[in-house]
């Protein structure tokens, strides 16, 4: 997030797109609700009639995967109506002229055809966002889990840049992180393109620095992504270590994924349960869980916070860092003689400029948001104030592309996937917490009443849902939460493995899977 969570109570206009916040980030959503009570206006772009959508002043139930078209047309309206912040564009951005020329073509009428919402509503959305002072954007995986995920994000950046809604209180571009420490995994360099602290793997100085620190020659180029690695299993990748991820259930195209992991010579999994993924491993290590582990995690607003152990571990479980270190030591790798989480975190701080002002003791009270470049720095609740890190904010010229697969005679419905309030991911945790079942006992497919009628589906009856990759059985829930022509389910229940169906394509830059769009056929059983 460019702005702190506390800023969520301060926008004049809220633009929430691709985020089912009341279910996926419920506590953050309470802040938006208070902003609404204080008089803020809210635009929600989401195919589904989510709780957030019901609270919105304007709900745009756009067709899945049509976000870029909507955002181009909103930018068009903002420019046409003279709502751009010319002085911000002049002083702080680059590429504005080209972008402003580019969007002249993309009228609300053009976008209306693609997004399947009235042009007048798109017009209205542009006006409301453009007039807000400030306007804040919130998004989640509904923006990124597309083949055009990067285009979507850049389109949102364009909107914020053209209206000067960056670096100001109550504004900004705010992706909500879905996992407790997904931000931290990136901060720590567990990505193929960056060392810890976002120091680039293809920057010679950083390569030199980490080669020296880690006492080995690290190749001066980016690694492959997880998606590519899974594709190469058995054909180049032969050994894998997976920590705390139920890859075969969460990732798209389940059959492909399972086959990939089975074709490895050596798979090591560290987890707290014998997940579907762990069951494929050659070695499984029991890790300590929440409440048993001392450590650090970073939240969606870049706040670095302490986790504290409350009870001893179950059985012989050990912290993940200890397990990895013991394997490293046995392979003769130097630098793994750690005795505590504190030692490791302090090493991370020493070699990451964004954490340079932090150490284990300083984060005791959760008061710092990175970057914290030195010990006298108070932290950075709000990014881009006064200047951008890389000089100027760059506009990006993007165009609309269809999803990897579009509906057809064989697969005439759009399937989109997501989460539900009461369950988390593959339910390895919430499914083992007493009482959750009382509220959410099984999976269902949300189908619009008109579609149910034309397909002969009944509420509570079973249906078969097939995509180009596979078929599953699922109970039908007839509801107008889904728009006509689109069905929804979550990936939480192992007995309804929806990721057998997904996996039609990946964003070419990030290789994030298009989990939000999958043409399917639904038939009554």
């Amino acid at each position, binding site marked *: 997030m460019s702005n702190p969570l506390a800023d969520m109570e301060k926008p004049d206009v809220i633009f929430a797109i691709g985020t089912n916040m009341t279910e996926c980030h419920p506590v953050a959503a309470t802040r938006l609700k208070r902003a609404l009570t204080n008089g803020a206006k809210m635009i929600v772009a989401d195919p589904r009639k989510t709780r957030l959508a019901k609270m919105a002043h304007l709900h745009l139930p756009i067709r899945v995967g049509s976000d870029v078209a909507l955002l181009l047309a909103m930018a068009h309206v903002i420019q046409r109506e003279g709502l751009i912040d010319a002085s911000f564009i002049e002083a702080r951005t680059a590429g504005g002229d080209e972008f402003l020329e580019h969007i002249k073509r993309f009228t609300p009428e053009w976008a209306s055809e693609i997004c399947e919402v009235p042009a007048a509503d798109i017009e209205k959305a542009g006006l409301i966002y453009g007039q807000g002072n400030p306007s804040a954007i919130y998004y989640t995986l509904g923006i990124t889990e597309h083949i055009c995920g990067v285009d979507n994000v850049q389109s949102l950046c364009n909107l914020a840049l053209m209206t000067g809604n960056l670096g100001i209180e109550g504004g900004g571009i705010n992706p909500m992180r879905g996992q407790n420490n997904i931000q931290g995994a990136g901060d720590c360099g567990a990505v193929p393109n960056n060392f810890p602290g976002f120091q680039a793997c293809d920057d010679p100085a950083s390569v030199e620095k980490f080669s020296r620190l880690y006492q080995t020659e*690290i190749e001066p180029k980016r690694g492959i992504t997880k998606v590519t690695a899974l594709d190469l299993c058995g054909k180049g990748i*032969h050994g894998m270590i997976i920590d705390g991820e139920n890859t075969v259930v969460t990732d798209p195209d389940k059959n492909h994924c399972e086959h990939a992991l089975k074709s490895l010579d050596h798979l090591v999994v560290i987890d707290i349960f014998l997940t579907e993924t762990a069951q494929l491993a050659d070695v499984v290590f029991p890790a300590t869980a929440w409440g048993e582990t001392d450590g650090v995690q970073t939240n969606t607003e870049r706040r670095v916070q302490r986790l504290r152990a*409350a009870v001893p571990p179950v059985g012989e479980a050990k912290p*993940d860092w200890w397990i990895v270190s013991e394997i490293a030591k046995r392979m003769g790798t130097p630098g793994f003689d750690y005795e505590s989480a504190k030692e490791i975190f302090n090493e991370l701080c020493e070699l990451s400029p964004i954490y340079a002002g932090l150490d284990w003791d300083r984060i005791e009270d959760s008061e710092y948001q990175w970057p914290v470049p030195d010990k006298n720095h108070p932290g950075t609740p709000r990014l881009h104030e006064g200047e951008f890190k890389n000089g100027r904010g760059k506009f990006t010229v993007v165009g609309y592309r269809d999803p990897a697969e579009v509906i057809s005679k064989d697969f005439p419905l759009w399937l989109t996937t997501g989460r539900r309030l009461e369950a988390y991911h593959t339910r390895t945790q919430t499914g083992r917490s007493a009482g959750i079942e009382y509220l959410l006992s099984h999976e269902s497919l949300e189908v619009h009443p008109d579609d149910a009628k034309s397909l002969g589906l009944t509420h509570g009856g079973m249906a078969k849902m097939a995509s180009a990759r596979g078929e599953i059985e699922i109970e039908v829930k007839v509801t107008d939460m889904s728009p006509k022509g689109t069905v929804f389910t979550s990936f939480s229940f192992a007995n309804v493995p929806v990721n057998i169906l997904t996996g039609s394509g990946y964003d070419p830059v990030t290789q994030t899977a298009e989990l939000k769009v999958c043409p399917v056929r639904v038939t009554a059983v």
Partner: protein
Amino acid sequence: MISDLDAQKTAKALILTLDGEEVAFEPGETIYEVAERHRREIPTLCYDERLEAFGACRLCIVEVEGIRNPVASCTTKAAEGMIVKTKTDTIEKHRKTLLELVASENRSVDVNQLSGYASQELKILVDRYDARTGRFAGKKSGTSNTKDKNPFILRDYDNCISCYRCVRVCAEREGDYAINVMNRGFNTQIITEFNNDLRDSECTFCGQCVQTCPTGALGDRKALRDSDTEGEIRKTRTICPYCGVGCSVDMLSKGDKIVGVQPAMDGPANEGALCIKGQFAFDFIQNADRLKKPMIRREDGELHECEWEEALDFAAAGFAKVRDKFGRHSVYGIASGRAPHEAAYTMQKYIRATYGTNYIDNCSRA
């Protein structure tokens, strides 16, 4: 030297007299807020600093010179020159009587601490004012809802004192408006729309009503399962393990057992709020399915439990063999977006320092 700004501030400082002491206050502050800053410990029951002041319990009354009757300090704004007394004999007597009245309506003022964050407030005040006199024994208000079998929220309204904190937190903080007040006086009852079970209302089971209830009328049913478990309740401050918001919580344990979770009112991300997952989905930790020992796949093709030494040696030997046979680009590491920094950091270091590659990623792409 006094700067112009300081001089202006001094010139504009608002002053009132609090129990004989001159104290400064900011425009808009209530008497209660000023008094709390000066550690007056004014008793309250309907007050939760996150909510709009309500003025229902009348325990926070103070005397203000020039006003005939005592005023509720939580709803009365401080004013220049006010002379306030927070603890006169008369006020204290009123407070004791009020507490005797409130206590008389409840089945019991002694409730288990596991009921919720604020559950001891009534008990503490009743004891502080020695108000267990039974002077007003008789009529009760509120009837416990025994038909709502939800596994999370106990609705023991025999102990309800009509402070409406549950109703207010649901509306003001959560924006859910799941519950409301039916009837008045002794017939007051907290209900959902059409008096349905919470499951059939707008309730999201965030537990905020439970945590703000000052009497334990609303109780944390999951935590209360361990009422009889041996040991003192210990609180450990940590961060919720679910989404990226990073809510601060206090994990409650007795001995080696985790018994519950309470929100941290001073958590910067959540300011006391939680959702159903952070509040109630904690017991996976000590679930019987947890992996307790390392396992390796033996000749029979099955995973078998083994000792750490053997598993670690086996894991390392397997990677060495793959590397020696296929080269350093044949091993890949996937770090967790769920585990702490130290896990992700050591994982990336293991890959980079052992293989000299950047063949490392995490689960953010799916």
